[in-house]
Every structure is written in C-alpha cells, then in structure tokens.
C-alpha cells in the first residue's frame, strides 16, 4: 500500500511545467499537463540520468533536456524506439487542488545509505 504525502497544490506547478519533491526514494518530479493532470516520475532519465523535471512537457509526455529522450508520464516508459523506464509514482489530486504523492513503505526505507567501515 502507499503512504500518501501532501506535497502542495496543483497551482504551485506551472502548466506544462514540473517541480521536484525530495523523498527518501530520491528526487521525484511532479508534472502538470495542459489538461491539469498531475504525474510523478523519478527525476532521472533512464538513459543518462538527466533531470526530467527540467524537460519540456507536451501532451502526456516529457522530453529529457540532455538527449531528447521522450518518456510517457503515465507509465514512465520511454517512447519507442528508445527503450527504458523511469519509476513512476501515483499522484492524487483532491477537489480543492491539493496534491498527494503516494510512496511505497517509506518508513521502512533507510533515509541514507548506512556507513560502512
């Protein structure tokens, strides 16, 4: 099951834009499309780790700023012919415009890598 975290309001994100939420899973990019839906992907392109939150959003897709890979916002899948996938997370948009991000079992995850001797 997901733990749901309030992350702000839809209007905190510009249309066709994106903002980053810092989570124990790493940085998660929250996207707002032109039809006012919100999507969340890990902020790392499966190609060379580019920050997807800095890309150009169009339709339900984002283009990575580093090498123009395109990813589906709904699934995180790269658009063919590229092959790859960015982790995607569920986002819930309340009627009052508040956004919630669903994260898996965050509590049980270590917040930082354990130091090794």
């Amino acid at each position: 099951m997901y733990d749901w975290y309030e992350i702000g309001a839809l209007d905190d994100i510009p249309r066709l834009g994106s903002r980053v939420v810092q989570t124990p899973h790493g940085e998660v990019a929250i996207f707002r499309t032109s039809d006012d839906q919100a999507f969340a992907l890990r902020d790392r392109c499966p190609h060379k780790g580019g920050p997807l939150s800095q890309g150009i959003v169009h339709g339900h897709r984002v283009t990575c700023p580093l090498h123009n890979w395109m990813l589906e916002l709904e699934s995180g899948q790269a658009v063919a012919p590229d092959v790859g996938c960015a982790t995607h997370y569920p986002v819930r948009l309340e009627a009052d415009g508040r956004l919630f991000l669903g994260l898996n079992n965050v509590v049980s995850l270590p917040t930082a890598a354990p130091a090794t001797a």
Partner: protein
Amino acid sequence: MKERLVLVGNGMAGMRTIEELLAIAPDKFDITVFGAEPHGNYNRIMLSPVLAGEKTVEQIMINDLPWYEEKGIHLHAGQAVVEIHRSRREVRAADGTVAPYDRLLLATGSNPFILPLPGNNLQGVIGFRDIHDVETMLAATRSGKNAVVIGGGLLGLEAANGLMKQGMQVTVVHVLDTLMERQLDPVAADMLRTTLEERGLRFLMGANTAAILGEDRVRAVRFKDGLEIPTDLVVMAVGIRPNIELAKKAGIYCERGIVVNDTMQTYDPRVYAVGECVQHRGQCYGLVAPLWEQAKVCANHLARFGIGSYQGSVTSTKLKVTGIDLFSAGNFNGGPGCEEIVLRDPARGVYKKLVVKENRVQGAVLYGDTVDGSWYFQLLRENTDIGAFRETVLFGHAHMADSGRDGFSVMTMADDAEICGCNGVCKGTIVKAIAEKKLFTLDEVRAHTKASASCGSCTGLVEQILAATVGTIGKTPAEKPMCKCTEHSHDTVRAAIRERHLTTLRDVFTTLDWKTPDGCHSCRPALNYYLISTWPHEAQDDQQSRFINERVHANIQKDGTYSVVPRMWGGLTSPKELRAIADVADKFQIPTVKVTGGQRIDLLGVKKEDLPKVWADLNAAGMVSGHAYGKSLRTVKTCVGSDWCRFGTQDSTGLGVKLEKMTWGSWTPHKFKMAVSGCPRNCAEATIKDFGVVCVDSGYEVHVGGNGGIKIRGTDLLCKCATEEEVKEYCGAFMQLYREEGRYLERTAPWIERVGLSYVKSRIVEDADNRKALYGRFLDSQKHAQVDPWAERASGYKDAHEFQALRQVG
C-alpha cells in the same frame, strides 16, 4: 451514420489517399473500394524488377487482402466500375454491384497508349501497365525468343531490360534518335545506349513502325522502310493516356485528364480525383512523387480539415535498371540565360550535368553516379543559391561535409566506419536498422539509430546510406515539415504568424491545425521564438516552451548542475569583477572556473538552487547575464586595438563594447556571435563570426555569415563602413533580417547559403531605406529585451518555482 466514401481504382494514388485519410480521420467514412485488378494494392513502380526476376509479386504488395478487412474497407477486387450515376450518387460495377456514396474518389489511373497500327489487336501485342501484362510477358519468354519493344522511354527500356534478363532477344524501336528524350540530354542518352547495347539489347533508332504482322498471334513487325523483323511479342511503351472514360461518361468535365482544382476536387464538388487520371493546372503526371503530394492534399480535404493545396510538382526520374545509375530532374536542356556545369569521365562511365541560371539549379542529369541526385533535386526545389560552392558542386554533397574526400561514396566505406560522431553510430548499424526495421525516412533512421540526430552534420551521409539501402523509390524532398506535430514548414508557419496576426501558441495550434495538443520539444521553442520576434510588444514569452537553459538562464551540464557566465563587455573586465567572481566560486564551492573562447569566465558545476544567490552576488558587482546559454547574442570578442596595439588602426575594443551594449538581450534563431578586430591581422577572429568587423585604416570592413563549429565557414564581406555609427546600423539591420527570416536553429552561415549573399546585400546594402527600417525594428524590439534576467530572478520575484523544490517528504 458515417458518411460513405467510394474509391474507384485500387491503385497507388487512390489507396495512398485512403491511407492518408485513415491516418488523420480514421472513423469519418465507411469506405468502399473498387479495383479492376483481382489483387490487393501493389507498388506499380516495382513491376520492372518483377519482370526482371529481381522481385516477386508478393514483395511488391503494399496492402494485401487481410489489410482491407482489418481496416473495415469493403474491397471489390476484380470489379471494374462501369457507371457513375451522379444524381443518385451511386456507382455500378460490371457485375451489377451498386454502391451509394456521399463522396466519390476517382483514381482510375492511365492506359498505355496503343499505336493505331494494323495488327495492334493481335495476340502477343500488349502494353506494360499491370501485373497481368507482366504475367503475359513472362509467359511469352517461355514460349518465344524474340521481342520487340516499341518506345525508347523510361518504361520501354525497363521492359526491354526485364525481357532480356528473362532470356529473350530484344529489339527496342524508337522513333527519335536519342533514348529517353524527356529525361536525358543527348550525351547521357548515348552513354545509356552504349551500356545497354553492351548488355545485349538491340536498338532501331529513328524507326517508324508501319504494321504488326501475323494471323492470330504476332509474327513480325514491319517498318516504313520495308524492313521486317520476326518477333513473338510486341510491347507498346510509347506513353500513357489518362483513363477518363468513366468520368467523361458521367459528365464530369475532362480535358486530357479529369480536371481538378488545387484541392483535387473535380467540377462535381462531391467527386475528387487523384493520380494519373488527373489534369491539374494543365499538367498530367505519370510519375509517383506527385501522386503522394496529391494524396496528402486530397485526404486532408476529404477529412474536411480544409488546409493544404496542391500546387503542382517538379518531378525527378530514376531508371530502375539494375546496374545503371541514372537520374534526371527539371529543365536539363537549358535555354536562354542558362549555363551548364558538366563533369564527364568516360573511363568511369560518369556524366553529370547541372543546368544553372543565376546560380540556381534549374535541372540535372546524372549518369553513372547518382548519389547526389536527391541533393541536387533539393537545391532545385528550394531554389538555393549555389554561388558559394559552385566550384565543387559537381563533386557532390559528401565533398561539402567535413569528410571532403575526392570521389567519395559512402557505400564504399567499411561497415565499422563511424558515420555519426556525436552518437557513435557506424555504417553497418544504420544499414542493418534500415533493412531489419524497414525504415524509409531520415526521421525513422534518426529515431532508431540516433545517427544524425544530434548536430546533424552527417545528415547527408545518412541520407546517402538510406538511399542506397532502400533503393530507388522516387521520393520528393519536399519542403520539410517543422516536426511531426504539423505538415507545415518553418516558413509557412512563420508567414501565418505574421499575416494572420497570431500572438499565442494556442492561436498557432488552432489556426494551423496542429496534430498534437501542446506541440513537442522541437516545435514549441521554435514557435515561441517566431511569436516573440514577430510581435515583440504583444506576444508573451512562454517559459514552458523554452529549453531549460533559457528558462533558468544557465547551461545545464551532464550531471544536472549548471554553468554560469557573466557578461564581460567586449571581453573587458576589472579587478572588482574578478574579485567578485573569485568570491562567488569560493562561497558556493564551484568546482571549475574556466576562461571561455568568447573572452569571458565560466563557472561550472553550480547547483540549481544556488543559481539565484550566485547571480545576486554577481549583480552586486555590476555584472549581468552573458546569455551563454541562449539562442541569442552571445559575445563580442575584441582585440585591444589602437589604444595599445602598435598595429591597431581603430578602437576595436570600444566598438565591440558599443555593439554588445546595443545588441545584448536580443533573441535570435540560433546563437549569434560577433567580433571586432583592430587590423587585418584579425586577432579577434572576426571572419568566423556571425557578424565580424575588421578595422582598416580607412574605416571598417563588415563581414557576415561565418562560424567555427561543426562545419567551419569563413564570412562573406558585406560592405565597408566609414564610421562606428554606420557599423552599428548595419549590425542591427543584419541581425534583424536574420531574426525575421532565418529559420529557428539555423545559424547565419547556412541561412546565407540558402538565401544567397546577393539577397542579403540587396536588402541591407543596396536598399538604404530598408536597412534603416530593419535597424529601427531591431532597436524597437530591444526596448523590451534588455532586462537582465539574472536580476529579475535573483530578487526572488520571478520564476521562484524554477529554483526551489516543491516539498520534502518522508
């Protein structure tokens, strides 16, 4: 209920229209197709290779019968339509089948012209048009051994070659003295004839056929001079006639073909027509490329999108005879005012001729080496000024690229030779992808292999590989659409923005029927630029349509950090500025500090959230954004000039500073660099800049259109100026002309090669009023542009969301 569309003619033009229609309006019509031939839809152009035994009928099928079922199309194969009843809006087929329509599409193609000779109805006398003809010919090769082909044009030679390959003794009869006179000049025609004779074809030139002899079956052909040659087969390939019987009977207006307007509509508004049966602006076409263009336009209007008009086609031809490379396009015979550029190498069997008028290609004939056919055709269609590379144009496009080797052909390269240096793609990979994934276009090759998808300098090589691998399907390098979101080219879109006064992206999307809801990463930045450069006071700069670098006013690096370059006017700096830079680097632990090629200092590895604070500190020392990240004015590089240098003739540094103060903050189609050198020794390298000034004792030489980069280009001398004021006027006017007419992401170098230096001179040097008007528009648009983007953001009131995380959770 869906509207009913009936197509008469299951050939290439008609079905291409249906395919285009299904792509844009899949559910609009209930579609019924009548075809006289009992097959699915096949590629008629490839009949010659089938005849020659190089391909099978299955291999040239475009859509087989299951495809029609899958698409829900009712196909009546083998059913010729015999009547159109226009008032009842229905068609009737030979077997009595009746199909009602709301829209009717005629694509009845053409018939081979059969000479009115005695004996032309004997068995064994045929045209060369469809699968049935090919089957008849193949049957004849099994029983007989002699064949006569009447007609030494494209089709006749392909038929003759095929029959010869099947083991027949073939004589080609042609009424004129040169072969393929509609495509070749006499020199190329003679070379072709020699090659074909060496392969075993016989030719009778200047021969008039008098009669075909035989009882039931053809036995011989007799000529006017009395000569008789025995034969088992006669193929008539003397031309085609648009098949207009059906339309004529139905009272639809026809001349040579069915007359259509620019939307492919006939005189009956419910009836459209495409393909070889059509007469458009007085012209009938028998080649494939025009059909594709007609199909696109027609589908668009059938779908009621109502955009796109067919303006006629310039055509090119290739001969599909294996081992013979031949290409022709346009006006290849020249005429008044035309010049011919010719390369002829009998030993290699190569002949190339370009017909040129005022440095624009009018026509081309290539024999033996046709690799550059599509390039010349593009130069022809785009009316490119070839003045700058005229002396090497016949050596080909590859010669223009970095690799510039003489006699270079990409297909002679090894499979592991690297084609795309940016993405590390070698030739073998590209060939393999084209073959395995059945790629047909440059875009597809880019998508699958990434070759030429980055800097684009290897595009020509990739196109050559594509051409050589796919073969010779005639493709027209039309004006390229901006991207997959639209059919319109950059120039069309831009004209629409100006003429229809479009000021927002949404206006553009709706007015020009964009296919995607928000465009894409490729078209949005271009559109945003066109909007703000066309309507500087009205259009809103759309931040979400800018590439990240222009959105956050810094350069993204491979690890997601940014680089920051403050402006140093004319390359001048001071102890105070250097101290501030050093302090910023210390304070924000900036890992790399580097001097750039543009005489400034680059701070690399700045974290995004630190950007506003870094800028605030730099602003405090008086520095502003250097726009090192933008499609905009970058730097003005200078040498020290007459203030210090013993050779300096003018104050080059001072002029550089003035130019930079005037032009900074302006957005341009691509980056724009300047330089001012104080003497002809040119220490500031002004002759590889977009705009360069070389000071001389008597004034200033103004140079334009240079760049370093992928393909170095030295500048062209635009003019000489006497005063700094004049230089500023030329500078502003030149930038404005480029801003208004250059395509997005086209630097001044390719722009000038496209439009020609003489054009630029005519607008700026020879037309003083126009120069002043351009300069005025430039200064006017600068009123809104010269705001330091760093200061706006450092103070925290603009685009704060760009630099802060939304929230931290967990």
